[in-house]
Every structure is written in structure tokens, then in C-alpha cells.
């Protein structure tokens, strides 16, 4: 008897394997390393893991000019995957820096002695969810897609709830679990319908089957696509699948929110773009309309709901919904330009999203209570660097030409225009106008209150930690990196677009 084994391109899976390996090592830390060393050891492992995976992903980008599937057609080794993994690993590295000082979140009631209890588990989960996302962006068939989606989602559910004695953390985890399972269920059901219609789960195979059997517009297939769109919509927190987002983003430890708001969107949007253009090119007229409508609804709900929020994490959560809308404009164009626009947009967006949540984390630590527009007063003058960075991120989010967010918006709107959708351009422009109010509201809260309110808030970091004010060097490094990336992406558009163009060439556009 001969045992049939598939040829596995281990190098092509390198970033995923490195991350999952680092996750196991970090988990071992939780039991083998004494508590005093645990935080340092597990953070070092996480940092090393993400760095190694980043290097491998860059290497894969260089080495995968001719994209192809590996592991019996289960996984794409191409530049779209590799570039997505580079972005994910960079966010992971920044999250590690943030996590060292901010996990568990500040403001919880329990004993400070117990802060290091679950730190190694946190980094293990961070690495595991990173590995799941790195696998997800390269998925080449519907089973791998579902498997990796569950893989990183389960890790995220636990990460949301890791601060179980922080108000709202457990609630956030549970809410995300229930709503996320619903989304995953929709995705799975949709996959089953697509499989039923076409007899295959591979992305390429679906497109071939649709073409050869003339299945365009087939009821099963269309229902399946609709359910898959809904399932992915949950992960990218696009309206109307966004209900969980504000609550979960608010309740989860801010480090986890920073990671979710940037990395999950990168993974979900890149995968969605690949899935739609590879597997369903013959139904483009359907899904591009579907995504255009989802984009419009996200822009409307995200921006209008953000106007009335007082809690800064909720404002940023709604802002992330509206940005999902912007990126979906690029997706709905379904063109090479749309792909480039999406890939480019993700770079400044994830930098700004991560950076702004990191700054909220710093303020939370000072105050020991959730950050609102009221208690943000004076923050800009007290912490000049973080204040300027927040100011910068807010203007960048609003699409003012202070960072790459401006060029990103220009690109997605250009993609919509070239697709012939002037109305979508107008929607995007109007949504930006509405968004100005709450982004500037945050700047106003930090810098422009009457001078009495601009005094240092009582309590401060001393009250929480009982010692001198925290230095938070690692947080500053992470925010500084986000700042540099979002500013740099304004000037380095050409090189970034070249990278994105090579990546999008892997897709059948």
C-alpha cells in the first residue's frame, strides 16, 4: 500500500506556520515561565514571531511573482496574499508593543498584583488570531475560508473577554461570539449553497463551473453569494451587519479593539475582494451592486450614528464602520483600479485606526475610566506628542490632505467614477462632509475647551498605578510608527501603488 501525500510548499505557508509556532511557545510561557518574567518573555516571543512572519511575507512577495495555488489548490501563494500578510504582521507587531503596557486594560477593579495572570495567554491568542488572518487572506477554497475565519474569530472572542473583571469586557466577548457565530453560520450556509450549485469549493473551480454550466443568475448560486456577502460583512463590520461593532469595540480591552479595528478589516476586505473577483466574476453585476449598497448604508449609518456619541471608543467604532463603507466602494468597482485603491487605503487606514485606539488606551490609563469627549479635555496640551498624533489621525480620517487617508479616498472615489458610478462618488463626498463634525469634535475636545476645563484631570496615572506617571515608551513607539506610516503614505503613493498593482495582478481582473 502506498500512502498518498500531497506535496506541501512549506515556504509558501511560512508566515502562518511561524505565527502559529510562536503562539504555541507563548502558551508554554504561561505555565513554564515564572510570573515575574512572563510579560517580558511572552511579549518578546510575540514580537519575534510577528517580525519573523513579516520578513517571510516580504520574502514571499518578492518570490511569488507568478501566483499559484499550493497544498492541492487550498491556498494562494501570490502577492495579494503576501502583501496582506505584510500589513497584518506589521499591525501585529504594533499591537504587541501596545499590549505590553496595556493588557489587561486599565481601570479594572482587581488587584494590581494579578495584572500578569493572563498575559502569556493574551500574546498566544494574538499570535493565533494573526496566524488565522494570515491564512484567511490566502484562502483558495470555501472550506479553507471558513476554517480560517473560525480560527481567527475564536481567538478574537477570547481576546475580547480576556479582561473578565473589566466592565463590559465579558459582555463584549459574549456579544461578539453570538453575533459572530451568526455571521459565520451565514457564510457557511452560503458556501454550502454555492457548492450545491457548482459542485466545487475551489474559487477558480466555481468560476469555471459557472461559465461552463451557464449558472449565471442561478437561484442557489445567487442566494449563496448573498449569504457569503452577509457573512463577510459581519467580519468587516459593514452596515447593516455592524450591530455588534460599537458595543464590542467599547467593551473589549482597547489593545484588542486596536487590533480588531485594523487587522480584521484588512483580512476580511482583502479576502472579499479576491473571492468576488475570482469565484464570481460572472455575477459581478450582482455583487458589485450589493457591495455598493452596503457601502452606502455603512457610510450613512456609520457617520450619522457617530455624530451623537460621547464615548470616544464608540465614535471610533462608528468611524470604522464608515471607513469599511469607503473601502467597499473600491471593492464594488471590482476593477484593477478598485483593487489597488483598496490595498492602498488599508495602509493609512489601519495605521490611523490602530494609532487612535492606542492613544485612547493611554488616556484610559491616566484616568482609569472610559474616555469620553468630556474627559478628553486638555489631553492635547498635557501630552503634546500623543495629542498631535490624535489630531493628525482625526484630520487624516476626515480625508484632509494631512496623511494617506486623503489619497485613499481619492483612489476609491476614482475607482467608483471609472466604474460609471457618479452617484457613489457623491455619496462618498457627502459622507466625508458629515464625518468632519465628529472628527473635529475630538480635536475640539482635546484643544479648544475653555481654559478651566483644560486643566489636568484629577486622578491621572498616579491614581491608577500608585506610582509616578507612566512613561509608556512602547506605546509611544507604536503611535509614532502609525504616525510615520500614515504621513509617509501621503508622499510615497507611487511605490505603494506599485506594490498594490503587482499584488492585484495575481487576481483575474
Amino acid at each position, binding site marked *: 500500500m502506498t500512502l498518498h501525500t500531497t506535496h506541501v510548499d512549506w515556504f509558501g505557508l511560512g508566515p502562518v506556520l511561524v505565527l502559529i509556532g510562536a503562539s504555541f511557545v507563548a502558551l508554554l510561557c504561561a505555565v513554564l515561565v515564572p510570573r515575574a518574567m512572563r510579560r517580558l518573555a511572552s511579549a518578546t516571543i510575540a514580537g519575534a514571531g510577528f517580525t519573523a512572519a513579516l520578513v517571510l511575507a516580504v520574502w514571499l512577495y518578492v518570490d511569488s511573482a507568478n501566483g499559484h495555488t499550493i497544498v492541492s489548490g487550498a491556498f494562494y501563494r501570490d502577492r495579494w496574499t503576501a502583501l496582506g500578510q505584510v500589513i497584518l504582521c506589521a499591525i501585529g507587531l504594533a499591537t504587541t508593543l501596545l499590549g505590553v503596557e496595556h493588557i489587561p486594560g486599565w481601570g479594572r477593579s482587581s488587584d494590581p498584583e494579578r495584572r500578569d495572570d493572563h498575559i502569556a495567554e493574551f500574546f498566544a491568542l494574538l499570535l493565533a488570531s494573526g496566524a488565522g488572518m494570515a491564512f484567511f487572506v490566502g484562502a483558495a477554497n470555501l472550506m479553507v475560508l471558513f476554517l480560517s475565519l473560525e480560527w481567527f474569530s475564536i481567538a478574537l472572542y477570547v481576546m475580547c473577554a480576556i479582561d473578565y473583571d473589566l466592565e463590559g469586557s465579558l459582555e463584549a466577548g459574549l456579544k461578539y461570539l453570538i453575533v459572530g457565530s451568526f455571521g459565520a453560520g451565514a457564510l457557511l450556509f452560503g458556501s454550502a449553497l454555492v457548492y450545491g450549485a457548482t459542485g466545487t469549493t475551489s474559487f477558480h473551480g466555481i468560476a469555471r463551473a459557472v461559465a461552463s454550466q451557464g449558472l449565471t443568475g442561478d437561484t442557489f448560486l445567487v442566494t449563496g453569494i448573498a449569504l457569503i456577502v452577509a457573512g463577510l460583512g459581519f467580519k468587516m463590520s459593514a452596515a447593516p451587519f455592524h450591530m455588534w461593532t460599537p458595543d464590542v469595540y467599547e467593551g473589549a480591552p482597547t489593545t484588542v479593539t486596536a487590533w480588531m479595528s485594523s487587522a480584521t478589516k484588512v483580512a476580511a476586505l482583502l479576502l472579499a475582494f479576491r473571492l468576488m473577483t475570482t469565484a464570481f466574476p460572472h455575477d459581478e453585476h450582482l455583487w458589485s451592486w450589493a457591495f455598493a449598497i452596503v457601502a452606502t448604508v455603512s457610510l450613512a449609518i456609520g457617520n450619522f450614528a457617530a455624530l451623537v456619541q460621547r464615548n470616544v471608543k464608540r465614535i471610533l467604532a462608528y468611524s470604522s464602520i464608515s471607513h469599511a463603507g469607503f473601502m467597499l466602494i473600491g471593492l464594488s468597482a471590482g476593477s484593477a483600479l478598485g483593487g489597488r485603491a483598496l490595498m492602498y487605503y488599508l495602509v493609512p487606514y489601519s495605521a490611523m485606526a490602530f494609532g487612535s485606539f492606542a492613544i485612547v488606551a493611554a488616556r484610559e490609563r491616566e484616568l482609569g475610566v472610559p474616555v469620553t469627549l468630556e474627559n478628553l479635555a486638555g489631553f492635547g496640551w498635557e501630552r503634546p506628542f500623543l495629542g498631535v498624533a490624535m489630531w493628525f489621525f482625526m484630520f487624516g480620517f476626515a480625508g484632509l490632505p494631512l496623511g494617506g487617508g486623503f489619497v485613499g479616498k*481619492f483612489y476609491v472615489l476614482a475607482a467608483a467614477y471609472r466604474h460609471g458610478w457618479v452617484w457613489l462618488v457623491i455619496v462618498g463626498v457627502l459622507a466625508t462632509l458629515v464625518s468632519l463634525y465628529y472628527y473635529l469634535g475630538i480635536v475640539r475636545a482635546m484643544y479648544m475647551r475653555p481654559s478651566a476645563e483644560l486643566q489636568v484631570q484629577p486622578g491621572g496615572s498616579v491614581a491608577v498605578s500608585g506610582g509616578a506617571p507612566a512613561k509608556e515608551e512602547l506605546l509611544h513607539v507604536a503611535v509614532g510608527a502609525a504616525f510615520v506610516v500614515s504621513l509617509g503614505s501621503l508622499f510615497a503613493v507611487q511605490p505603494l501603488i506599485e506594490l498594490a498593482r503587482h499584488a492585484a495582478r495575481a487576481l483575474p481582473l
Partner: protein
Amino acid sequence: MNASSLTSILIWLPIAGAILIWILPLSRYATGSLALLFSLAEVGFWIEQAARFDFTRSGLQMEERATWFGDLHVSYHVGVYGFSMWLVGLTVVAMAACTGYGFWVGRDRSRAYFGLMLLLTGATVGVFVAQDLLVFYAFFEAMLIPLYVLIGVWGGARRMEATIKFVIYTMAGSLLMLAAIIAYGLKSGTFDLVNGPTSASRWLFLGFMLAFVIKAPLFPFHGWLPDAYREAPPEVSAVLSGVIAKAGLYGMLRIAIAKFPDPTSFYRTAVLALAAAALVYGSLLAFRSTDFRGVVAYSSLAQSGLIALGLFAGTDLGFDGAVLQMVAHGLISTSLFLIAGAVERRTTTGEFRFLGGMARGRPALATLLMTLGVISLAVPGSASFAGEFLILAGVFQRAWWWSAIGAGAIVLAAMYMLRLISAVLHEARGSTVADEALDLRPGELALVVPLVAGLLFLSAWPAGISHHSFFGQSPAASVRSQFK
């Protein structure tokens, strides 16, 4: 030094200065000196540019081009024409005076303040020299960022409403302009202003014009103006009305009129009507205003209308007069706002009912305010007389009644200006005017006198600008050929 790099230096030198000021932990005094040094160096570079500018050559000069992103054909493309060079000059001179004013009054949180003033300088120069639509848009928007913070942090008591109104108004216009830019650029395959084709699309024209009429502003898009001009610190009001408003008018000339010839003639009457409305309405409101800054603010609205009248006349005289008047009014309103600031510092108010009798014992203040008033009400022989006369003669060639309206408004200008002068300088002594209130100090004189000297120079030789803005004998032909 290479002449073509001067344009980029004028943009990036103040921005580099801003970054330097934000990074270096200097004292208030050192920060202010450094900022003033940068803005004076900026004036020096502009003089160098003006000296090297070749008025006998057509087309763009001192241009630089580098690809920004190639797949959509966007490039960093800057350069100057005659008229844009004058506006750059206005910007750097007025910004230097306003930065100096900030230094003189000792603004608190000085590093943030002076950095933002320098950033504003660079962004505004960028608007006037950008030759690519996206670069133009980026600088046009970038002006808003420092302005928002400058008004919001250092402004008066009702600054919150003022900033929100200002930002929402201007962004509403400029975001629709972004949509128009995308449509124009993708349709014509380039975002370049020099090589790009003309367009006959009325929608695109309206998209651009909306942004410009809000920024200028013209009636009825001036809702943000009174609050912003009253609540901003005086030197920021001076920049707003003296320089930033000109960016809107410049956009009309450089983009709306030059790139959209057919829509321009289609909407000519409508725009002229808006401009005339702004002129008359602004003058009437200026006459009704009860405070110093209100008069200057509404007179800026009127002057924007007058300049737009000249631009949309579409005649040789109209274009020449409009450029001259942009510079002349820029200098006038900058100086007037700075003097308004000086008066407010001495009396704590700009309300006319608390002012009066300031001429007695304050000769410098009286002389400067009188001189500015006389120039601004277009007494024959003054720079603004030359500008207004050219504009009215230019628009007369369209139809006589436009210049009749304009001439009527000039009478109104005389009324509100004289009212302002008498309410501040003459009449009975106001309740807030103490005997101890000093005359203008040397520091203040050093800021305002150069501006007034510039105005007197232009009064003596208006052709310095009006004959040196466009290539050739006919500005209208130059605009038709898109300045080539």
C-alpha cells in the same frame, strides 16, 4: 541656486520651519523670533523670484514636476505665472506681518501657534503655484487645517460656533470640487492644469465654482464670514480676508474661467449677478455694522464681489483690474485687521459705541488709519482706484449697468469707510478709550507701515501689477489660450 527650485522652496521652507518649531523646545521669545526669521526669509526668496521672473516670456515659469502617482497621471507640478507670482508675494508679505503681530502680542502656547502660522504660509503659497489639480486641492484643503486650530484655540468667546460653521461651509464646497476634479481628471486622462484640455461640462464648472464662491466668498455663500472674522484672533482675520479669500478668486481665474470657457460664458450673467449682489449687499452690511471688524469683514465680502465682477467680465481691463485689486485689497484688509487688533488691545472692544476720539494724542494710529481709509474708499490716485476703475471699465464692455452698480457701491464704500474712521478716531471720546491708551508702538508700526508703503507704491505705479500679470497685450487672449 536654480531658479525653478525657488517655487518649491517657497512652499516647503515655511513647512520645514513649522516642523522645526514643533520639535525644538524653545522659549516663547526664541520661537517667535525663529518664526519671524522664517517668514522674512520667505519674503526674501519671493523677492528673488520676482527679480528672476521674465515678464517678456509666455507660459509657466520656474516650474518643477515630479510624478506623485503615475497610474492616474497625478504629478507634483508647480510653477508661477505673472499673476500667481503677485499673489504669492501678497501671501508671504501679509503672513510675515501677521506672524510678527502674533509675536508682538505674545500669543500663548507659542510653539503650536507659530508652527501653525508657518504651515498656513506654506499651504497658501502652494495653492497659488500648484499646476496639478490634485496638488491644488491638497493645498486648498491644507489651508483649512491650521486655520481651524488657529481660530478654535486662540479665538474669541464664540469661537466654537465660528470654527464649525467655517469648516462645514468650506468643506462642503471643496468636497464637491474633489468630485469634480476626479471627473475632470479621469475623463481627460490627466490632472495637469497646464496640459489638461478645456472642458464644456457645466456640472464640473459648477462643482469647482461652488468651492471658490464659498472661499471668496460671494453672496449668498458668505454665512461663515462674519463669525469667523469676528471670533478669530485679529491677525488670523487679516490672513483670512487678505489672503485666503484670494485663493477662491484665484481658483476662479486659474481653473473655472481658464478650463471651462463655454460654461463660463453660459453662466456669466449669473455669476456677475452674484458678484454684484455681494458687492452691494456687503457694502450695505458694512455700513450697518456696529464694530470695527464687522465693517472690514463685510467690506471684504463687497471687495470679493467686485473682483469677481472683474474676472467674469472676461475683458482685458477686467482681468488686469481684478489681479491688481486682489493684491491691493489684500494689503488693505490685512492692515485694517491688524489695526483693529491694535485698537482692541487698547480698549478691549471693537464696538463703535465704546470707541471714539482716538486720534487725539495718537498721531501714528490716526495717520495710518486715515491713509488706509482713503486708499480703500478708492480716492483717485490710490491703488484701489486704479483697480476698481479697471474693473468697472472692463465690466462696462459687457453691459453698462454692471458698472453702474459697481460705481454705486463705491459710493457706499466711501460711506462705510468714513463712518469707520470717524467712529474710531473722531467723535466724542469713547467710554473705553483711556488717556493712557498708547499710540501705535514701534513694533506695530514695523508691521503695518511696510504694508501701507506697498500700497502707496502701487498707488504710484499700478501698472507694476496690472501690466505685469499676463503675458502679451491682451489678458483675455492669454486666458483663452490658457496662459500658454
